[in-house]
């Protein structure tokens, strides 16, 4: 499968918007992997692939808390190249797992890029420190929008680098692309990440009972206990 330039431009723009949404503006949950992946999949004409990759990465997102000065992965932007990789790899049994692996690696790189962005913002603020101490209303607006611009640049670079890597993945040996075990590892890892994240977050303490109850209901719904 090859992707037209228009589709690549579209997903790059979407990935940039998703990256900016994570921290800068508007924090409207477009950066949730399932949202980012589904929209990217629709843009590529592969909504099911987008959803499958997004669903797995969304479970990994349960294990991250995007708060304060902590380092957390940028899984939203990383989802876009992951979906592109899975779409390019086609219907091989390992394609979803390989896309997820790319997304996880890119997410970590995205986390490092967020730290660099914060330091870049800090250096700019230090340069105008005396003006800020005197009270400079116009400067505040300028700093804000410079921050948005930098975050957009960071996100765009992350997505473009990811798309470049995704483009090389069809060159992998066919025996790897066709390996179902790869997708199974991704599925198991996502289940583990989701469980750990929930038990550490909303299901901590006595709330673990609610989590177990939900899991039982989920197994019943999927017919897994039948």
């Amino acid at each position, binding site marked *: 499968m090859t992707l037209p330039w228009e589709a690549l431009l579209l997903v790059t723009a979407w990935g940039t918007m998703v990256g900016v949404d994570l921290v800068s503006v*508007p924090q409207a949950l477009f950066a949730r992997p399932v949202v980012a992946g589904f929209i990217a999949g629709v843009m590529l004409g592969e909504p099911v692939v987008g959803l499958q990759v997004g669903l797995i990465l969304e479970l990994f997102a349960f294990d991250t808390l995007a708060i304060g000065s902590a380092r957390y992965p940028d899984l939203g932007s990383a989802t876009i190249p992951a979906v592109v990789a899975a779409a390019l790899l086609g219907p091989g049994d390992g394609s979803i797992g390989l896309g997820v692996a790319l997304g996880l690696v890119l997410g970590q790189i995205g986390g490092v890029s967020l730290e660099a962005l914060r330091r870049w913002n800090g250096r700019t603020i230090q340069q105008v420190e005396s003006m800020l101490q005197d009270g400079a209303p116009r400067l505040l607006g300028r700093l804000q929008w410079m921050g948005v611009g930098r975050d957009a640049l960071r996100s765009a670079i992350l997505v473009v680098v990811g798309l470049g890597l995704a483009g090389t993945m069809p060159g992998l040996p066919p025996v790897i692309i066709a390996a179902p075990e790869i997708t199974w590892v991704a599925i198991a890892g996502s289940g583990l990440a989701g469980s750990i994240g929930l038990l550490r977050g909303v299901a901590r303490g006595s709330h673990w009972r609610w989590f177990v109850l939900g899991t039982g209901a989920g197994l019943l719904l999927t017919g*897994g206990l039948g």
Partner: protein
Amino acid sequence: MTIARTTVRLACVQSCWSYDRMQGIGIGYASLPLLAPLGASDPDRYRAAVARASTFFNANPYLAGIVVAAAARAELDGAAGEHVLRLKKALAGPLGALGDLLFWAGLVPLVSAILLVAGAGWGVREPAIAGWVIGLTLVLFNGFRFGLARWSVGFGWRHGLSTGGALVESGLPRVGPRIAPLAAVLGGVAIPMTLAAIGGQGRTVSVLVLAVIGLAGLARRRSWRLPPTALTVVGIVGVGLWRWVVAGAGT
């Protein structure tokens, strides 16, 4: 109108986040419409108020409107600068804890679980339905979030220096703990559904679900620090290499 402008500006409160001032610049930027009357009446005090508004601050971004408006109200009421700074410092911790409990340990995991259930339940067979549910969920979340931001600005604006006490008496501290059990149940539902949506329904997925949840529970109980991302990437690379080597040996 002023409250609406402040609410809109709060959407980008973290755009210039830095380790030195954290959300300070964003808080200052969001405060400008509320502080504007000072600019006309007392330009010197206005500049000093803007400087104070943009000092170091960090709290949950979705509730930042409370501190923005409370500090601006205090400035307009003629409170001493040190009192305004003390108010900001006093509100940072409670607003961070409240907001994190409400959003990061409540609403966001709940929304995430709804998205997972929608995506896993309909996505593979009927992506259009999944798309509608995802869209509707985002509209509802953002409607609540922007509504809460507007309420936050109004709340801080009404209470000024006495915001801390008013916050304790408001219903806000009780909301987060009520959402967490719901998010835990739906999160629990979402895991088997998601794994089945990708891996297919059947005994294998059920065993896998029970295995990973058991392992996660054990890790939690024993305080093991399992890194799922690293384990998954290493596992995928390992399996890929193994398949490649086995295929090479066979030819």
